[in-house]
Protein backbone atom coordinates (compact mmCIF):
# COMPACT_ATOMS: atom_id res chain seq x y z
CA UNK A 1 0.00 0.00 0.00
CA UNK A 2 1.49 3.34 -1.08
CA UNK A 3 1.47 6.19 1.41
CA UNK A 4 0.52 9.43 -0.34
CA UNK A 5 3.04 12.24 0.20
CA UNK A 6 1.79 15.75 -0.49
CA UNK A 7 4.06 18.73 -1.00
CA UNK A 8 2.80 21.90 0.62
CA UNK A 9 5.45 24.58 0.13
CA UNK A 10 8.45 23.66 2.26
CA UNK A 11 6.47 20.98 4.10
CA UNK A 12 5.84 17.38 3.07
CA UNK A 13 2.70 15.73 4.40
CA UNK A 14 2.56 11.92 4.56
CA UNK A 15 -0.80 10.39 5.40
CA UNK A 16 -0.69 6.89 6.90
CA UNK A 17 -3.43 4.39 6.19
CA UNK A 18 -4.81 1.91 8.70
CA UNK A 19 -3.36 -1.29 7.29
CA UNK A 20 0.32 -0.53 6.77
CA UNK A 21 2.60 -3.55 6.76
CA UNK A 22 6.22 -3.46 7.93
CA UNK A 23 7.31 -3.42 4.28
CA UNK A 24 5.08 -0.38 3.62
CA UNK A 25 6.61 1.43 6.60
CA UNK A 26 10.15 0.66 5.45
CA UNK A 27 9.28 1.85 1.97
CA UNK A 28 7.83 5.06 3.37
CA UNK A 29 10.91 5.70 5.49
CA UNK A 30 13.14 5.68 2.42
CA UNK A 31 10.62 7.54 0.27
CA UNK A 32 10.18 10.37 2.76
CA UNK A 33 13.88 10.97 3.27
CA UNK A 34 14.47 10.97 -0.49
CA UNK A 35 11.70 13.50 -1.04
CA UNK A 36 13.00 15.74 1.74
CA UNK A 37 16.30 15.81 -0.15
CA UNK A 38 14.69 16.27 -3.58
CA UNK A 39 12.42 19.15 -2.58
CA UNK A 40 14.77 20.66 0.03
CA UNK A 41 11.85 20.43 2.44
CA UNK A 42 12.16 22.05 5.84
CA UNK A 43 9.64 19.85 7.56
CA UNK A 44 7.61 16.65 7.35
CA UNK A 45 4.22 16.08 8.89
CA UNK A 46 3.28 12.44 9.36
CA UNK A 47 -0.48 12.14 9.79
CA UNK A 48 -1.34 8.91 11.62
CA UNK A 49 -5.03 9.71 12.27
CA UNK A 50 -6.16 6.60 10.36
CA UNK A 51 -3.74 4.23 12.11
CA UNK A 52 -5.61 1.87 14.40
CA UNK A 53 -2.53 0.18 15.82
CA UNK A 54 0.86 1.64 16.67
CA UNK A 55 2.99 -1.30 17.68
CA UNK A 56 6.69 -1.46 18.50
CA UNK A 57 7.74 -1.64 14.85
CA UNK A 58 5.59 1.29 13.73
CA UNK A 59 6.74 3.54 16.55
CA UNK A 60 10.38 2.60 16.03
CA UNK A 61 10.01 3.41 12.31
CA UNK A 62 8.46 6.79 13.13
CA UNK A 63 11.33 7.59 15.49
CA UNK A 64 13.84 6.58 12.84
CA UNK A 65 12.11 8.72 10.22
CA UNK A 66 12.20 11.72 12.56
CA UNK A 67 15.88 11.20 13.37
CA UNK A 68 16.90 10.76 9.73
CA UNK A 69 15.01 13.88 8.75
CA UNK A 70 16.59 15.82 11.59
CA UNK A 71 20.02 14.83 10.27
CA UNK A 72 18.96 16.49 7.02
CA UNK A 73 18.28 19.64 9.02
CA UNK A 74 14.49 19.39 8.74
CA UNK A 75 11.73 18.91 11.32
CA UNK A 76 9.22 16.09 11.75
CA UNK A 77 5.86 16.39 13.45
CA UNK A 78 3.66 13.36 14.08
CA UNK A 79 0.00 14.33 14.14
CA UNK A 80 -3.29 12.60 14.89
CA UNK A 81 -2.35 9.81 17.33
CA UNK A 82 -5.78 8.61 18.44
CA UNK A 83 -6.50 8.49 22.20
CA UNK A 84 -6.96 4.71 22.29
CA UNK A 85 -3.78 4.25 20.25
CA UNK A 86 -1.91 6.51 22.69
CA UNK A 87 -3.28 4.45 25.59
CA UNK A 88 -2.13 1.18 24.01
CA UNK A 89 1.32 2.68 23.28
CA UNK A 90 1.77 3.71 26.91
CA UNK A 91 0.70 0.26 28.14
CA UNK A 92 3.13 -1.35 25.75
CA UNK A 93 5.91 0.96 26.95
CA UNK A 94 6.40 2.76 23.63
CA UNK A 95 7.51 6.35 23.52
CA UNK A 96 8.21 8.84 20.77
CA UNK A 97 10.84 10.69 22.77
CA UNK A 98 12.51 13.53 20.95
CA UNK A 99 9.82 13.59 18.26
CA UNK A 100 7.40 16.52 18.04
CA UNK A 101 3.70 15.61 18.12
CA UNK A 102 0.57 17.67 17.57
CA UNK A 103 -3.17 17.11 17.86
CA UNK A 104 -3.96 17.21 14.16
CA UNK A 105 -2.75 18.45 10.79
CA UNK A 106 -3.85 22.01 11.50
CA UNK A 107 -1.99 22.15 14.82
CA UNK A 108 1.04 20.54 13.20
CA UNK A 109 1.16 23.21 10.49
CA UNK A 110 0.67 25.96 13.09
CA UNK A 111 3.55 24.55 15.15
CA UNK A 112 5.83 24.56 12.09
CA UNK A 113 4.79 28.06 11.01
CA UNK A 114 5.71 29.33 14.47
CA UNK A 115 8.98 27.46 14.41
CA UNK A 116 9.96 28.80 10.96
CA UNK A 117 9.09 32.33 12.05
CA UNK A 118 11.46 32.02 14.99
CA UNK A 119 14.34 30.80 12.88
CA UNK A 120 13.90 33.07 9.85
Amino acid at each position, binding site marked *: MEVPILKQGAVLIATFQAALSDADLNHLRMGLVQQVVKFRSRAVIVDVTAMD*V*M*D*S*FASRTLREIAHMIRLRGAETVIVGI*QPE*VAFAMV*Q*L*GLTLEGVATALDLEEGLAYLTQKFKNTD
Partner: protein
Amino acid sequence: MRAGEIRVAINSDQDIVTARQKGRALAIELGFSTGDATLVATAISELARNIVSYARKGQIALKTVHASNRQGISIVASDSGPGIRDIHQAMRDGFSTSGSLGLGLPGVRRLMDEFEIVSEPGGGTIVTVKKWKQ
Protein backbone atom coordinates in the same frame (compact mmCIF):
# COMPACT_ATOMS: atom_id res chain seq x y z
CA MET B 1 -11.13 -26.59 13.85
CA ARG B 2 -13.31 -25.75 16.81
CA ALA B 3 -16.49 -23.79 16.25
CA GLY B 4 -16.00 -20.06 16.32
CA GLU B 5 -12.24 -20.21 16.16
CA ILE B 6 -10.49 -17.95 13.68
CA ARG B 7 -7.05 -19.04 12.60
CA VAL B 8 -4.59 -16.85 10.78
CA ALA B 9 -1.40 -18.38 9.39
CA ILE B 10 1.54 -16.07 10.07
CA ASN B 11 4.20 -16.25 7.38
CA SER B 12 4.97 -12.63 6.52
CA ASP B 13 4.59 -9.07 7.73
CA GLN B 14 1.36 -8.77 5.73
CA ASP B 15 -0.16 -11.56 7.87
CA ILE B 16 0.52 -9.44 10.98
CA VAL B 17 -1.89 -6.85 9.58
CA THR B 18 -4.50 -9.51 8.70
CA ALA B 19 -4.33 -11.07 12.18
CA ARG B 20 -4.76 -7.80 14.04
CA GLN B 21 -7.63 -6.72 11.80
CA LYS B 22 -9.45 -10.00 12.49
CA GLY B 23 -8.80 -9.62 16.21
CA ARG B 24 -10.18 -6.10 16.24
CA ALA B 25 -13.26 -7.18 14.26
CA LEU B 26 -13.93 -10.01 16.72
CA ALA B 27 -13.50 -7.68 19.72
CA ILE B 28 -15.93 -5.15 18.26
CA GLU B 29 -18.39 -7.93 17.40
CA LEU B 30 -18.30 -9.04 21.05
CA GLY B 31 -19.05 -5.53 22.21
CA PHE B 32 -15.58 -4.49 23.42
CA SER B 33 -14.99 -0.73 23.62
CA THR B 34 -12.85 0.70 20.81
CA GLY B 35 -10.13 1.30 23.40
CA ASP B 36 -10.05 -2.36 24.44
CA ALA B 37 -10.35 -3.49 20.82
CA THR B 38 -7.22 -1.41 20.14
CA LEU B 39 -5.40 -3.11 23.02
CA VAL B 40 -6.37 -6.52 21.59
CA ALA B 41 -5.26 -5.53 18.07
CA THR B 42 -1.95 -4.14 19.39
CA ALA B 43 -1.24 -7.30 21.40
CA ILE B 44 -1.93 -9.45 18.33
CA SER B 45 0.39 -7.27 16.28
CA GLU B 46 3.24 -7.80 18.78
CA LEU B 47 2.63 -11.56 19.11
CA ALA B 48 2.45 -12.03 15.35
CA ARG B 49 5.61 -9.95 14.92
CA ASN B 50 7.44 -12.19 17.42
CA ILE B 51 6.46 -15.18 15.26
CA VAL B 52 7.76 -13.54 12.07
CA SER B 53 10.98 -12.31 13.74
CA TYR B 54 11.93 -15.41 15.71
CA ALA B 55 10.17 -18.43 14.19
CA ARG B 56 9.39 -17.18 10.65
CA LYS B 57 6.04 -18.93 10.61
CA GLY B 58 3.31 -19.92 12.98
CA GLN B 59 -0.30 -19.22 13.69
CA ILE B 60 -2.60 -16.92 15.60
CA ALA B 61 -5.88 -18.45 16.78
CA LEU B 62 -8.65 -16.21 18.06
CA LYS B 63 -11.78 -17.29 19.84
CA THR B 64 -14.48 -16.17 22.21
CA VAL B 65 -14.20 -17.44 25.78
CA HIS B 66 -16.82 -17.50 28.54
CA ALA B 67 -16.46 -17.50 32.29
CA SER B 68 -19.16 -17.30 34.98
CA ASN B 69 -20.80 -14.15 33.72
CA ARG B 70 -18.33 -12.57 31.42
CA GLN B 71 -17.11 -12.86 27.89
CA GLY B 72 -13.70 -12.39 26.48
CA ILE B 73 -11.26 -13.07 23.70
CA SER B 74 -8.53 -15.63 23.79
CA ILE B 75 -5.54 -15.30 21.50
CA VAL B 76 -3.14 -18.18 21.04
CA ALA B 77 0.09 -17.44 19.21
CA SER B 78 1.96 -20.62 18.39
CA ASP B 79 5.05 -21.51 16.43
CA SER B 80 7.53 -24.33 16.17
CA GLY B 81 10.52 -22.03 16.05
CA PRO B 82 13.67 -22.09 18.17
CA GLY B 83 11.79 -21.49 21.44
CA ILE B 84 12.90 -19.30 24.31
CA ARG B 85 15.79 -20.44 26.48
CA ASP B 86 15.13 -18.16 29.41
CA ILE B 87 11.49 -17.15 29.74
CA HIS B 88 12.11 -15.03 32.85
CA GLN B 89 14.65 -13.01 30.92
CA ALA B 90 12.30 -12.71 27.90
CA MET B 91 9.62 -11.34 30.21
CA ARG B 92 11.84 -8.52 31.41
CA ASP B 93 11.41 -5.11 29.80
CA GLY B 94 14.20 -4.30 27.41
CA PHE B 95 15.23 -7.86 26.58
CA SER B 96 15.51 -8.81 22.93
CA THR B 97 17.57 -11.25 20.93
CA SER B 98 16.53 -9.99 17.49
CA GLY B 99 17.64 -6.38 17.83
CA SER B 100 14.04 -5.23 18.13
CA LEU B 101 12.77 -3.02 20.92
CA GLY B 102 12.53 -5.96 23.27
CA LEU B 103 9.21 -4.79 24.62
CA GLY B 104 7.14 -7.51 23.00
CA LEU B 105 6.22 -9.99 25.70
CA PRO B 106 6.16 -7.85 28.87
CA GLY B 107 4.28 -5.20 26.88
CA VAL B 108 1.69 -7.72 25.69
CA ARG B 109 1.24 -8.90 29.27
CA ARG B 110 0.42 -5.34 30.32
CA LEU B 111 -2.11 -4.95 27.48
CA MET B 112 -4.03 -8.09 28.37
CA ASP B 113 -5.78 -9.52 31.46
CA GLU B 114 -4.26 -12.99 31.37
CA PHE B 115 -0.95 -14.17 29.99
CA GLU B 116 0.60 -17.59 29.74
CA ILE B 117 3.70 -18.76 27.92
CA VAL B 118 5.00 -22.23 27.24
CA SER B 119 8.30 -22.58 25.46
CA GLU B 120 11.43 -24.65 25.42
CA PRO B 121 14.56 -24.48 23.33
CA GLY B 122 13.92 -26.25 20.05
CA GLY B 123 10.32 -26.93 20.99
CA GLY B 124 8.56 -23.81 19.76
CA THR B 125 6.56 -21.26 21.72
CA ILE B 126 2.90 -20.96 22.63
CA VAL B 127 1.64 -17.72 24.10
CA THR B 128 -1.96 -17.63 25.30
CA VAL B 129 -3.50 -14.31 26.30
CA LYS B 130 -7.01 -13.27 27.25
CA LYS B 131 -8.85 -10.02 27.46
CA TRP B 132 -12.21 -9.85 29.26
CA LYS B 133 -14.97 -7.52 28.23
CA GLN B 134 -15.38 -4.73 30.78
